[in-house]
């Protein structure tokens, strides 16, 4: 009896021991968080989902969790500026399970507008002034389009056309003086038009770099003001499919948008796909009426009629990388249809502005553009010192402007097909370039050749610019020399040959030749030379001198008609020659532990700047009256000297572990000797305070609150017939965080723009001439959900 009892007790005890062995929760998980260069990361946030425990890594990157049971766990590791690791799966099967978590930087981002980032070698290598932004900055500053999301960057402005697509401007230069590249291929649309926006889906932009200054040396014609470089997409982690769903809502125009991205990477193969769609209605303004030419017009319900729109895009990339290099092929299509405010085509009138009962409908007049692009990019490593870089592509920009048939000439009949198609252009461009890169000890030599062919076909009942064909070939040499640890020199030379053929066009309505046959060659030399002084990690001084050029565009040579985009009669001049610029850029960057300071003044001289001159006359050069109704004086394209200078300045300081503030200013002065150049951006000041919410808020991570004041001065540097724009102050509040739910982290970006619903006019807006105010207060909510899966 007793032995049985003892045996039973023993068995029970043994069993209990056995169980507790399994339920033993004195397992420990510990490890280090390091970056991609094996440097410890202090203050990284590690969250253990299954236990809802979290901790921060110490100064040597060390962290630990105790009281764990044996089993599978997933960690979420995050650190500002680095790609969040979620989940990091680990099986805890040893009492002291060790792990090393490697974090990768988030796409060379410019978080907190800090200039230095060791990853941005290329940007630091160039002696030009560069500013950049990564995913985080774009998310937190998202506006209605790519350029409005970037317009707070110093030296960068957006020319807006309502709330849809906008145009890039760098230090006051836009239109055909700024090059935009996507995957190293120039984006070619009808850049010359003030109401033509940049056909790029902003959700697809992960990292952007803006070179402020003449860059024809590498980018050829048109890179006078600078280059907006949309960098290639980041790759997924090997063996995983990374999907992200983004949704966005803007209250000012009831915008609803969704963008879904999915990327996959195997050992050597990678792919990327994205779909985006946004729809928006007529936008709200803080005004009941506006004045045009001393007449007062109503703005029913305080919403600008017919400024609604829809934008859709699809992007696809597939590529391979191996020891031989990397090759990727991309195809994309961007579609946008936006209404024009009815007064923008012709004169505003009470009848045109009556409420049509719908806020989302897009009625006449409207613009519609479809931009299709196919490109390939290859980097071929020939050996450790030689590389071959090849880029090429085809794109087709199909643009239409629809407006109820109205004739400017007596006797003109509406066409039978598409009677309301006012203007149509199909612009096809083939581009290709090849660079041979050779590294010889401390010298890097680039030998490049670039070619381009472009054809424009016109249609529509109104004539503005002729059909044309453009060919260009450029050859360049760039030398980069790292003399020693502190000094780097960079210089280069380029020669371009171009040809432009304008097609003859005779108008039966005016019985005049609207566009003569024109065939012109343009030969241009570009060069650049600069130095980078980088003595230590805190100071950097760059000086750059460059000469860049651009071939005149068909509009400057062959315009002959009423341009609704600028509300005038425009006349080209076939004797116009290539425009070129000489610019000196100085960049100063100084960073200490608790503060940073940067300044970049510049000065530029254009010996033959091309612009539209108001002739003061209503007669054509040959003395005849123009036949069109609704046309004021004749504006003629002319060339003259122009001077531009200005500077940007940035300063930021950390007040405490959780608070920091920053200030940015920019200023541009332009003159042609007598008058300023049109669309000169006004002096702007941005002051912001950032507060990082402490990590003890359990569910919210990387939480940041920002208050910002944007102060814009009155712009009195105006050309003839350009309106002086009063100054204004805007106040913005933004909040961003990541909520770690059980299954995925939910990214939230909340912005309240123009908190006080200030009524203001933007000097750079297409609607400025009509004295239409900009959008009122806006609450914007963006949600992002990453869904990742391992595929092995």
């Amino acid at each position: 009896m007793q032995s049985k009892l003892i045996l039973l007790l023993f068995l029970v005890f043994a069993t209990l021991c056995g169980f507790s062995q399994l339920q033993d929760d004195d397992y420990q998980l510990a490890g280090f968080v390091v970056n991609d260069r094996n440097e410890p990361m202090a203050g990284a946030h590690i969250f253990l989902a299954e236990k809802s425990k979290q901790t921060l890594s110490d100064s040597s990157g060390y962290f630990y969790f105790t009281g764990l049971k044996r089993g599978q766990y997933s960690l979420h590791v995050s650190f500002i500026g680095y790609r969040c690791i979620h989940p990091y799966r680990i099986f805890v099967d040893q009492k002291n399970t060790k792990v090393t978590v490697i974090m990768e930087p988030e796409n060379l981002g410019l978080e907190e507008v800090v200039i230095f980032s060791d990853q941005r070698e290329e940007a630091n290598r160039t002696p030009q002034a560069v500013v950049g932004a990564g995913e985080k900055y774009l998310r937190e500053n998202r506006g209605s389009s790519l350029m409005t999301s970037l317009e707070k960057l110093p030296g960068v402005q957006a020319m807006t056309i309502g709330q849809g697509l906008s145009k890039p401007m760098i230090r006051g230069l836009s239109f055909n003086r700024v090059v935009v590249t996507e995957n190293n291929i120039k984006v070619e649309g009808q850049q010359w038009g003030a109401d033509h926006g940049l056909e790029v889906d902003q959700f697809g932009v992960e990292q952007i770099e803006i070179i402020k200054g003449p860059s024809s040396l590498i980018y050829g014609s048109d890179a006078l003001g600078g280059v907006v470089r949309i960098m290639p997409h980041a790759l997924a982690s090997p063996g995983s499919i990374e999907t992200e769903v983004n949704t966005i809502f803007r209250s000012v125009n009831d915008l609803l948008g969704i963008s879904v991205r999915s990327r996959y990477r195997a050992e050597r193969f990678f792919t990327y796909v994205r779909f985006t769609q946004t729809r928006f209605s007529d936008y709200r303004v803080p005004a009941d009426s506006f004045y045009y030419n001393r007449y007062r017009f109503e703005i029913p319900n305080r919403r600008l009629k017919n400024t609604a729109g829809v934008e859709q895009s699809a992007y696809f990339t597939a590529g391979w990388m191996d020891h031989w290099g990397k090759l990727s092929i991309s195809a994309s299509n961007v579609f946008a249809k936006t209404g024009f405010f009815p007064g923008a085509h012709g004169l505003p009138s009470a009848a045109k502005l009556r409420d049509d009962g719908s806020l989302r409908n897009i009625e006449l007049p409207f613009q519609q553009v479809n931009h299709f692009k196919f490109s390939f990019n290859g980097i071929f490593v020939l050996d450790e010192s030689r590389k071959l870089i090849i880029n090429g592509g085809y794109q087709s920009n199909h643009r239409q402007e629809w407006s109820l048939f109205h004739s400017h000439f007596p006797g003109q009949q509406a066409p039978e097909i598409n009677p309301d198609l006012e203007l149509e252009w199909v612009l096809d461009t083939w581009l290709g370039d090849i660079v041979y890169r050779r590294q010889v000890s401390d010298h890097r030599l680039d030998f490049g050749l670039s070619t381009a062919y472009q054809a424009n076909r016109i249609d529509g009942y109104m004539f503005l610019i002729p059909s044309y064909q453009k060919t260009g070939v450029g050859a360049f040499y760039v030398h980069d020399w790292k003399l020693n640890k502190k000094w780097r020199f960079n210089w280069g030379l380029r020669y371009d040959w171009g040809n432009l053929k304008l097609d003859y066009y005779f108008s039966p309505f005016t019985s005049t030749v609207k566009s003569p046959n024109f065939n012109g060659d343009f030969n241009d030399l570009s060069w650049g030379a600069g130095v980078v002084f980088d003595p230590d990690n805190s100071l950097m001084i760059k000086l750059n001198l460059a000469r860049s050029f651009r071939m005149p565009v068909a509009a400057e040579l062959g315009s002959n008609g009423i341009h609704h985009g600028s509300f005038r009669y425009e006349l080209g001049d076939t004797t116009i020659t290539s425009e070129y610029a000489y610019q000196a850029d100085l960049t100063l960057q100084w960073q200490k532990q608790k503060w940073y300071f940067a300044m970049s003044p510049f000065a530029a001289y254009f010996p033959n700047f091309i612009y539209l001159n108001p002739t003061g006359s209503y007669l054509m050069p040959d003395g005849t009256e123009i036949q069109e109704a609704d046309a004021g004086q004749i504006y003629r394209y002319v060339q003259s000297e122009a001077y531009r200078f200005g500077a940007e300045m940035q300063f930021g300081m950390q007040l405490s572990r959780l608070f920091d503030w920053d200030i940015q200013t920019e200023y541009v002065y332009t003159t042609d000797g007598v008058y300023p150049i049109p669309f000169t951006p006004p002096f702007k000041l941005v002051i912001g305070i950032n507060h990082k919410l402490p990590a003890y808020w359990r569910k919210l991570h990387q939480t940041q609150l920002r208050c910002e004041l944007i102060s814009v001065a009155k712009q009195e540097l105006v050309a003839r017939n350009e309106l002086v724009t009063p100054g204004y102050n805007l106040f913005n509040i933004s909040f961003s965080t990541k909520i770690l739910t059980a299954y995925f982290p939910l990214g939230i970006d909340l912005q309240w723009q123009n908190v006080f619903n200030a009524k203001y006019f933007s000097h750079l807006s297409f609607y400025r001439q009509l004295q239409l105010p900009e959008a009122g207060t806006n609450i914007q909510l963006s949600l992002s959900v990453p869904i990742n899966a391992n595929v092995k």
Partner: protein
Amino acid sequence: MRNNRFFALMLLMATAIAFTYCSKDEDDPVDEKDTVKPQINLTSPANETEFLPGDAIAFSAVLSDDKELGSYKIDIHPGEGHNHKSTSDNGAWSYQKSWSLPEGSTNETVNHSEIVIPLEVDGVPTMPGDYHFLVYCTDKAGNEEFVAHDVIIVEPADETAPEIALSFVPEENQLYIRADTIKIAGSVSDNRHLSELLVAVMRSTSTEDMVNTTDAFVIMLNANEQVAGQNSFDFNASILVGATQDNNVPPRNVTWARGNFYVIVKAVDDSGNTTFSQRFPILIQ
């Protein structure tokens, strides 16, 4: 070392500032900057003045500028509410003319009486309605101002009555007996728009003012709805002798009688001008 760096930095900053602000003075403007627009005081025509085609529009304005005037132009074209689907066959009027102003002038009063609204445009009567009367003025430097007044071209009174052309008529004093068909055919047209068309059998004692849907003996055709707004209309009117109802809209009951009657066509346009065809006497037995 630190001091050297500090000095270098200060020197650099000073250069940068000098760069930015001192260079401004290098450029001495050759001409004086002028961004002040000229002023237009459009005294005639006043806003929303009405005119008839054929009238002269007296145009007078006072133009002034702070430095020197350039040129001015008037531009008259159809305003809102008009569908200009095709501007060559609807009589829309368009007029542009510009003049230059004397050199060195800062104030000019201009008067023009040569602007005459034509009676027709490309063979079509001038389209009535709202027109924009725009006056543009530039100064020597190219600054431009403009003023827009509305002028209204009213339709002149329509005194032209419709025209009736007949292709088939009853013979004089034609005899009709029961089961015969009385027929008359032709077309009507008007310079503007028709509004009524009536074909009736009238008692021989009836007068023209009795040609209506109440007093007529038998209505052979009531085409008021079809001709409304039309410029012209072809018709073919007939009635069976002995029919119980006529062709009015809605039909009226008819009691046929023997005797002398006449067939007549009446057309009215939208201004009220009326035309009667001749009387076609018939006999009914």
